[in-house]
């Protein structure tokens, strides 16, 4: 006769302060309250990022709504072994925001409207930073990039430009631009100590 063994040792009751990953698991099981809590934890990131990329506040709200609805619908498909819930949600957000801004404006318009102040876009993080600590760390770590790496990364991430567009705007070759984006992100990763 076998002895009883706990199948999930150490998990007992629901934890006091659920993190996005636990909440997302609950959402996958249809837990609407967990969804609300997940929204409360992540919505500022989602909305702020959408707002920064698409600029239009109404469009940003729509994107935030679409993202969270997608999270509700597909929470069961999220593979926890492949990164955090927060990264997943923000990646969904960034994709949608970038698609929206590319659809809404033609490529030549967008390149023309780029503000050629001549220097790296330092102010990009100063605007609308409500998460001050996070903003400070990102600002500080962006300093560890070369000017050209920083320009390439921020034009792509906050501006939604493709690497081909960035190459044209910075008057660099495609391979150089790809390398700057990759090396820039690697430096950011190392500076911020990103653990997946």
């Amino acid at each position, binding site marked *: 006769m076998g002895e*009883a063994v*706990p199948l999930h040792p150490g998990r007992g009751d629901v934890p006091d302060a659920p993190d996005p990953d636990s909440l997302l698991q609950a959402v996958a099981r249809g837990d609407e309250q967990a969804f609300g809590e997940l929204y409360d934890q992540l919505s500022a990131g989602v909305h702020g990022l959408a707002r920064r990329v698409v600029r239009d506040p109404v469009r940003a709200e729509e994107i935030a709504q679409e993202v969270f609805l997608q999270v509700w619908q597909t929470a069961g498909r999220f593979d926890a072994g492949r990164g955090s819930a927060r990264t997943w949600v923000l990646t969904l957000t960034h994709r949608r925001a970038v698609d929206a801004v590319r659809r809404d404006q033609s490529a030549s318009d967008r390149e023309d409207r780029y503000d050629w102040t001549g220097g790296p876009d330092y102010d990009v993080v100063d605007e609308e930073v409500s998460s001050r600590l996070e903003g400070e760390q990102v600002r500080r770590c962006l300093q560890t990039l070369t000017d050209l790496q920083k320009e390439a990364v921020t034009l792509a991430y906050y501006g939604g430009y493709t690497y081909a567009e960035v190459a044209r705007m910075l008057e660099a070759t495609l*391979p150089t631009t790809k390398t700057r984006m990759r090396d820039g*992100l*690697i430096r950011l990763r190392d500076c911020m100590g990103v653990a997946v």
Partner: protein
Amino acid sequence: MNDDVHTLVGAYALDALDTDEQARFEDHLHTCAPCREEVEELQATAARLGVAVAAPAPPVVRERLMEAIARTPQERPRTVVVEPARWRRWAPRALAAAAAVAVVTSGGAYLVEHERSQEAQQQVQVAQQQTEAMSAVLAAPDAEVRSVTLDGGARLRVVSSTSLDRAVVASAEMPAAGPDQDYELWTIDADGPESAGIMEPGEDGAPKAQLVDGLGSATALAITVEPEGGSPNGQPTSDPIATVDLA
């Protein structure tokens, strides 16, 4: 192009590829584990750039969402992570194609293909509900597992969850019940045994995993061999071939 594909990982993590390039790179990711790892890290890094510009959304967004989800269906979960490793033979298996549903039987997974026909869809739905209910038991934080070995080498595993008031009973190397017989499950409490249903045979005749709904105050589960269709009088007609204490 193929030599360069790895150098696209940064641009990909920044969503800086055009649609075609993105699709091609994602195809490449399927075959390149180092790229996948790097993409994960760099996407996590990029996400920090996003958090840095966080700005709260107006309350109406939350209201609209809570109302929308109440009437929006979810996709079925595709995977259940069950520990420890020895459970793999009994756990519902995730499959790469979202269209297939695995129903647990002894000794392996029985596939129900998601076909277009109405009947097949209904079967899949029932199978999915069963699988979901069983998966929920396996995933419950208070899940407990008990094992019994029968004479002849057949093995039974019972995973029970007090919070869900349910258990999953699975068998391995259990012979098919005789031609006019069925295995019947019973919950046993102070009042005696109560039927918890027949263990349905799978394609190979061996009993499939069974959900026991409503453990209540049961102190044990038992299996007996009964006439086909189960005991005619609501009570076991013979001694149990196996008993699993729940207390």
